[in-house]
């Protein structure tokens, strides 16, 4: 089926979200809490677009709105720009320490107001991507805790979580770089837990935690290259292919 996005005809599949369709058509919609690995969350509301369905006009979050019929989408209108500006202003108050949010604050021409600002070094915008990533890794060591203005991402009781593998997927996916990972002297510290890093057998570079490797081994997956870092693993695979030629 076809829908109209910003005056262009776009081929879409029934049930897919506006954001997915727009992305494929090369139409940019700003997002913060979205990652292709997961379904839309509708948390940050930055991807709001205008949807016209017959004579009805509505603003919706494009990451969660499934296309089920003929619609006309506009990704930028004065109302939507105003909404986004407002969201960025509020996110800036929540996470004034984030470079990304600071840049967006300027980009959208936000102006300061009397709303109270969070700690100057706070970077978390509570997008929940880290929680999803941790869940996907099979650990679920972190979650959103408390509610309202006290809401934050944390491990239970802020203690080192038994199930945390120290894989750093949470920090990797974080759009605002809010999760602290300290790596030094062969150790990685994340979420108040200290991990010993394992060195790559080939180049000697520390590349993973012992817990991570044990977890992979316990999954019964192919572990023949598990003692190699990412780049050495690629090299070893390339050499193998060479051997066949």
């Amino acid at each position, binding site marked *: 089926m076809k829908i109209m996005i910003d005056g262009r005809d776009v081929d879409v599949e029934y049930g897919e979200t506006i954001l997915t369709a727009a992305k494929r058509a090369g139409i940019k919609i700003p997002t913060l809490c979205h990652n292709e690995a997961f379904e839309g969350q509708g948390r940050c509301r930055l991807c709001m677009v205008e949807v016209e369905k017959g004579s009805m006009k509505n603003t919706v979050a494009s990451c969660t709105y499934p296309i089920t019929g003929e619609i006309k989408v506009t990704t930028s209108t004065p109302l939507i720009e105003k909404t986004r500006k407002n969201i960025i202003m509020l996110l800036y108050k929540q996470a004034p320490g984030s470079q990304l949010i600071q840049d967006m604050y300027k980009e959208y021409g936000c102006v300061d107001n009397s709303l109270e600002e969070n700690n100057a070094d706070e970077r978390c915008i509570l997008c929940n991507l880290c929680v999803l990533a941790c869940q996907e890794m099979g650990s679920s060591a972190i979650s959103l805790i408390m509610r309202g203005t006290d809401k934050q991402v944390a491990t*239970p009781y802020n203690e080192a979580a038994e199930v945390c593998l120290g894989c750093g997927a949470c920090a990797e996916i974080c759009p605002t770089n809010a999760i602290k990972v300290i790596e030094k002297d062969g150790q990685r510290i994340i979420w108040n837990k200290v991990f010993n890093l394992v060195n790559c057998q080939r180049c000697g570079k520390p590349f993973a935690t012992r817990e991570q490797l044990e977890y992979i081994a316990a999954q019964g997956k192919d572990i023949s290259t598990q003692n190699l870092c990412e780049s050495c693993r690629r090299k070893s695979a390339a050499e193998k292919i060479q051997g066949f030629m």
Partner: protein
Amino acid sequence: MAEDVSNTEDMISPIVTAYPREKRYILAMMQDVQKKYNYLPKEALKMIATHAEVPFSQIYSMATFYKAFSLIPKGRYNIRVCDGTACHIKGSAVLIDQIYNNLGIKPGETTEDKAFSLETVNCLGACAIAPVVMVNDAVHAKVTSSGILKIIEKYRGDAGDEDE
């Protein structure tokens, strides 16, 4: 009345396992534990996580989300000051200040000797006798700033007796 939390595991286990191993019973399990202990001990949350086969972090997320649950032990006497509209106008904030001056606890906190804990509630449904204070199950009506001190003294005396 809050019970002693020694040998918790044996005590909590029957409360939790009374429910089927399903996600939808988690809140009910929490309510039952809270009813018995007046708070949710860490062991209980872990047990619920294991029983319902849900990550501990998600259980913790739920437990911290609802105001009805407390993660720190409550005192033997739980003082609930109504801070609804009527009680607020009738000076409940003064009562909260008085309690802080006298016991050194703010809403959500418990005294070090575990005798008293304080919480505010949004309405006790007794606006005609505002401001209302409940201590455990006893209702105290039209409490004045000196009245609250008398109430604390009364229970402090009782608390002392229990220790002896």
